[in-house]
């Protein structure tokens, strides 16, 4: 197999397996948050961006409204617009490929592509990681949701603790310096101060405004926060996925 000899495709496969497995926890937590199986699958098939999906169900689980959940997920997805621009410059896809490429534009596919130097390898890496993650993410979401449905009361199994761990796990790899850590602490404190004052879900949106202002004011290096959840090239200590395109 020529494809399996491509370094980018090999990286993409391991990224797809690791990321796909996240889908297990997303599926289980989504049904625990009160979404049904079809709603959970709609998010994985159509929204297809792990952080935004976790954000949506995280707000719903906390008693937030649909509009708060949608807003949190939309704001967390803004970075995908930046990635889309990078992929467009990097791969120069023909017009008919733009929509499928856009749908597969996520942290992991972009990081896999930008970590390669050769344009053909960048292209293979992007499509292999994008398609691989899409297939496995959806398969494991289904498995997780079915398992979650069978488990019943979420608190009994510590699934609410699993949600806390999942969000911390998504945040952790993005904090590599003092400035992003400061942003994280400020936003967490702002959120907790706001919890008793405004309806559920809204504190997260207030934190988003604060984060955007901190970003505008120039706190932190330009590409902090744009790291993939699964680092495709761990030995290069974070040079991949930083939007160097």
């Amino acid at each position, binding site marked *: 197999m020529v494809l399996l000899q491509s370094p980018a495709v090999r990286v993409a496969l391991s990224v797809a397996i690791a990321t796909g*497995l996240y889908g297990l926890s997303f599926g289980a937590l989504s049904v625990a948050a009160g979404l049904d199986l079809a709603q959970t699958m709609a998010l994985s098939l159509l929204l297809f961006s792990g952080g935004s999906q976790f954000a949506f169900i995280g707000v719903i689980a906390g008693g937030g409204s649909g509009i708060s959940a949608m807003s949190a997920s939309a704001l967390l997805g803004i970075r*995908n617009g*930046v990635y889309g621009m990078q992929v467009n410059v990097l791969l120069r896809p023909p017009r008919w490929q*733009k929509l499928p490429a856009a749908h597969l534009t996520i942290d992991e596919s972009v990081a896999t592509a930008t970590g390669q130097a050769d344009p053909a390898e960048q292209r293979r890496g992007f499509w292999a990681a994008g398609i691989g993650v899409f297939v496995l993410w959806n398969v494991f979401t289904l498995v997780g949701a079915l398992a979650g449905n069978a488990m019943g009361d979420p608190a009994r199994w*510590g699934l609410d*603790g699993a949600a806390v*761990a*999942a969000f911390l796990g998504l945040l952790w790899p993005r904090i590599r310096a003092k400035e992003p850590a400061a942003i994280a602490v400020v936003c*967490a404190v702002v959120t907790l101060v706001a919890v008793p004052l405004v309806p559920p879900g809204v504190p997260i949106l207030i934190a988003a405004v604060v984060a955007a202002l901190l970003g505008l004011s120039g706190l932190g290096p330009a590409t902090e926060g744009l790291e993939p959840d699964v680092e495709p090239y761990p030995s290069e200590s974070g040079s991949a996925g930083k939007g160097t395109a």
Partner: protein
Amino acid sequence: MTLWGWILLACAVSIATKFLGFLVPAKLLDNPRMLRVAGSLTIGLLAALTAVNAFASGQSLVLDARVAALGAAAVALWLKAPFLVVVAVGALAAAVARLLGAA
């Protein structure tokens, strides 16, 4: 609007956001300020979601079994455990804390 409506709207917004990047000229998004805002938004939202899921119960702040999950997950991440292990450790810590009498 029903939950289904918000779910489908969130999906449409996600696809539109990604596609927009393919349509606009690179110059528009490729400036340090835009990258900074996208990056700090991502960090700020994930920090806010972590805090809410750990300490909020409706509109009140509580200390319950989820604090154990937060601490255990932090230790697992510090030990460089993979994501799925971190999630499982969080669930286990919350379940054990409840067995030991935490709310």
